[in-house]
């Protein structure tokens, strides 16, 4: 049995036993508390999905939970209770918080939004909802909330099993989702949002949709809570309750689905007993525990509880690699055209009137001293918003103001200077995410087969990462990480590949093999490769064309020999003429 299976199965079994056996084992007070705890646990799952998995710290889930609870309270108080109205309230409790969450998502996530900004917005949401409820007068019951409305007439045992079933269904469904191929995208966003964008994923739409779903789920949990307890108080929508959810998730283990479930249930139960006997001390202990966990055990407690139980063993069934069919869509005409592109920061011109073209099969070396604008040039190709003037066309289509994820869909792949990968995902998971725009990943299954274009398989074989499919990306060597990023970029099946110093920090033999790969990509597979390099020797060997960039202008472009032997290049690139001669003499 594998580690990941144990860490799921033991908590799942515990929850199942608790849900089935609860009413037989506990007194009414405990059963009552547990029912509420189950609904809280559903809300905690949504916090975990958003924060633990996707990295979006949110204080706002209480707003959706509370909104759902008020749907129950308002409908039952003002319209009365009947099965039709119950259905209406149930539907509203999903739709209203869901729409609210989508709106919050639109507000929080946009191109270039800082994660901290989204976090602050999530702070404002519960405060606004809370104030709205307070100012609702008799309609919302203001500060005393709504009580005494008629609701479902179930036995407490039935409520218990209903609540337990809701929690288990929510938890198991979420568990299946986060382990699926599509669920891995959430972790990818948490690990490296920029890389996601340059793999063609629209991360802010993904996050907005996720927040919408989580808001709806939290709303439904709130509805159930309100319908069960018969009391809907404004505190349910408030900011303190939202932070309480974070405490549950943080203490038990963010990013482990069953941790927050169990943690929420445990903490709610303990709180309900201790807050009567030693209320302030208990809050104090909780606060100290929370701070210590954040500082010393950022993963929470569950991984430390589970670890001794699990033996080390190999990963789940190994992933099989196979060759993907590539749609043959060879580019007619130029692969990339840059026309009078400029980039300036205020009065500082970093790029001036850059005009160059690249065709399929070209391997263009872009050389120039530090600060010549090489990386800026790459950025202007990869992100439509970056340049300040001129136009860029990729595969005959105008770049306009397109964001990276749209540019990628035009046929561009960008490899960054430092290995830009998903640290905590395995090699095969990284590559599968890179294939998302070609092959829609499943929301429920984990595929055992990974189909990649032939040239990606080549790269992997040459660099040896095909033997390490199950290894976490952060455990690869520097060279292997570079190879992984290159494979990810190529898995997009791009037509134009930007390579920013791909050999930096590699050993000589690694350089040689990677150089051979680049040649093959250009000549055999007809990519248009643009290669930024410092190392003239390296470029000389593989490039078909060289562009010399100096102080933001193209000083020269042409054949390799022509450029390398020109006096001009020797002067600026190697500093002075004489030192260039010396280096010639040394050879």
């Amino acid at each position, binding site marked *: 049995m594998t580690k990941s299976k144990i860490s799921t199965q033991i908590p799942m079994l515990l929850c199942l036993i608790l849900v089935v056996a609860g009413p037989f084992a506990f007194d009414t007070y405990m059963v009552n508390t547990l029912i509420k705890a189950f609904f809280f646990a559903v809300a905690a799952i949504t916090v975990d999905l958003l924060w633990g998995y996707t990295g979006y710290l949110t204080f706002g889930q209480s707003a959706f939970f509370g909104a759902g609870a008020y749907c129950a309270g308002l409908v039952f108080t003002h319209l009365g209770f009947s099965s039709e109205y119950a259905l209406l309230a149930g539907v509203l409790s999903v739709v209203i918080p869901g729409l609210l969450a989508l709106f919050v998502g639109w507000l929080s996530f946009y191109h270039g939004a*800082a994660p901290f900004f989204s976090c602050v*917005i999530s702070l404002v949401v519960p*405060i606004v909802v809370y*104030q709205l409820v*307070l100012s609702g007068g008799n309609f919302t019951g203001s500060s005393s909330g709504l009580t005494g409305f008629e609701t479902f007439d179930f036995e407490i045992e039935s409520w218990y099993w209903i609540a337990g079933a809701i929690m288990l269904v929510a938890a198991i469904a979420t568990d299946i989702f986060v382990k699926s191929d599509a669920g891995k995208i959430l972790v990818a966003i948490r690990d490296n949002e920029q890389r996601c964008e340059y793999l063609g994923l629209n991360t802010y739409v993904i996050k907005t949709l996720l927040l919408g779903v989580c808001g709806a789920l939290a709303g439904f949990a709130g509805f159930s809570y309100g319908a069960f307890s018969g009391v809907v108080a404004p505190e349910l929508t408030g900011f303190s309750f939202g932070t309480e959810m974070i405490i549950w998730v943080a203490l038990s283990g963010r990013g482990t689905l069953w941790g927050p479930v169990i943690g929420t249930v445990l903490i709610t139960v303990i709180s309900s007993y201790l807050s009567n006997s030693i209320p302030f001390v208990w809050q104090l202990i909780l*606060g*100290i525990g*929370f701070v210590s966990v*954040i500082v010393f055990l950022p993963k929470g407690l569950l991984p430390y509880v589970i670890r001794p139980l699990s033996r080390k063993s190999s990963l789940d069934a190994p992933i099989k690699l196979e060759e993907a069919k590539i749609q043959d869509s060879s580019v007619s005409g130029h692969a990339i055209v840059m026309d009078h592109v400029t980039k300036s920061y205020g009065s500082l011109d970093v790029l001036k009137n850059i005009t160059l073209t690249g065709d399929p099969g070209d391997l263009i070396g872009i050389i120039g001293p530090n600060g010549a604008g090489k990386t800026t040039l790459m950025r202007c190709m990869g992100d439509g918003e970056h340049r300040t003037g001129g136009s860029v066309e990729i595969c005959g289509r105008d770049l306009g103001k397109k964001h990276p994820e749209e540019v990628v869909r035009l046929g561009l792949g960008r490899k960054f200077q430092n290995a830009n990968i998903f640290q905590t995902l395995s090699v095969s998971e990284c590559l599968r995410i890179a294939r998302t725009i070609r092959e829609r990943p499943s929301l429920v299954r984990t595929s055992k087969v990974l189909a990649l274009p032939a040239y990606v398989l080549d790269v992997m074989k040459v660099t040896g990462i095909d033997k390490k499919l199950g290894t976490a990306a952060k455990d690869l060597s520097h060279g292997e990480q570079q190879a992984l990023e290159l494979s990810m970029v190529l898995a997009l099946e791009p037509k134009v590949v930007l390579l920013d110093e791909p050999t930096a920090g590699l050993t000589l033999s690694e350089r040689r093999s990677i150089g051979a790969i680049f040649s093959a990509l250009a000549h055999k597979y007809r990519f248009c490769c643009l290669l930024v390099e410092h190392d003239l020797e390296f470029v000389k060997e593989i490039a078909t064309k060289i562009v010399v960039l100096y102080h933001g202008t193209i000083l020269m472009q042409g054949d390799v020999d022509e450029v390398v032997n020109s006096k001009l290049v020797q002067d600026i690139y190697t500093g002075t003429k004489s030192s260039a001669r010396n280096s010639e003499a040394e050879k």
Partner: protein
Amino acid sequence: MGLVLDFATTTAILFIVTSGLMMIFGVMQIVNFAHGAILAIGGYVAFVITRVGIPSLYGCFFAFIAGFLVGALIERFVVRPLYRRPLDAILATWGLGIVIIQVIVMIFGRGVQLVESPLQGTWNILGTEYSSYRIIMIPVALCIGGVIIALLNGTRFGIKTRAVIMNENLAESLGINSGMIRFISFSIGAGLGTMAGFFITPLSSVDPYMGVAWLTNAFMLVMVSGHSFLALAGACLVFGSIQVLVSIYVNPVLGGMAISVLAAATLRIRPKGFSHD
């Protein structure tokens, strides 16, 4: 005239409350969620001092020192280990806020305490009777702002701090001990927080949760202001005035939300907020 005084005093009070938060956010890019609890500490310092009978003029120094010490402890033991995990640092300071508030509850109880205002009655300003204590807040805010700006622009510490704000790595490689700068600024920020709590106490009552009400508005104001104290003053003026207007002419509850909502909208439209760099 009453409206103008409302604008001015609201701005002043907001500035007093946010300056400590700004000090910390500006240097460390961390929003101190314990700020609410730190305001409460200031309130209780005021409470204790009036009980003991120390004139409140000295009280604000006691408040500053208390906050400085608490801030120093927080920085050293909680914030420093989380330097590379800013979102976790936010959470940890929130947790600390809970701890501080619970400690206050255990010492002073949960109830509301009243502190007598050192300055009672009203003053007549150009024909308008206005609460004298609120008016005093204007020079207090000007003093605090002046001292901070003098500290940042006129001292060696200030130059180093600004260097750390602009480019921490470069500052470190030039031999500036950025850890020390962070430590001192966090402590000063916390000290300013307790001092603010001390000053706002006569305006509201003292209870352990008194700071929480100010918290979000203070955050939002700091968020829209970026790094600059002048921008902060501007944000306090603009949003404070809007808050006053909405409270008077529309609805006090909406007035309470005005700052948060407007600041969020401002950031959505113009992510840089009020700062111009």
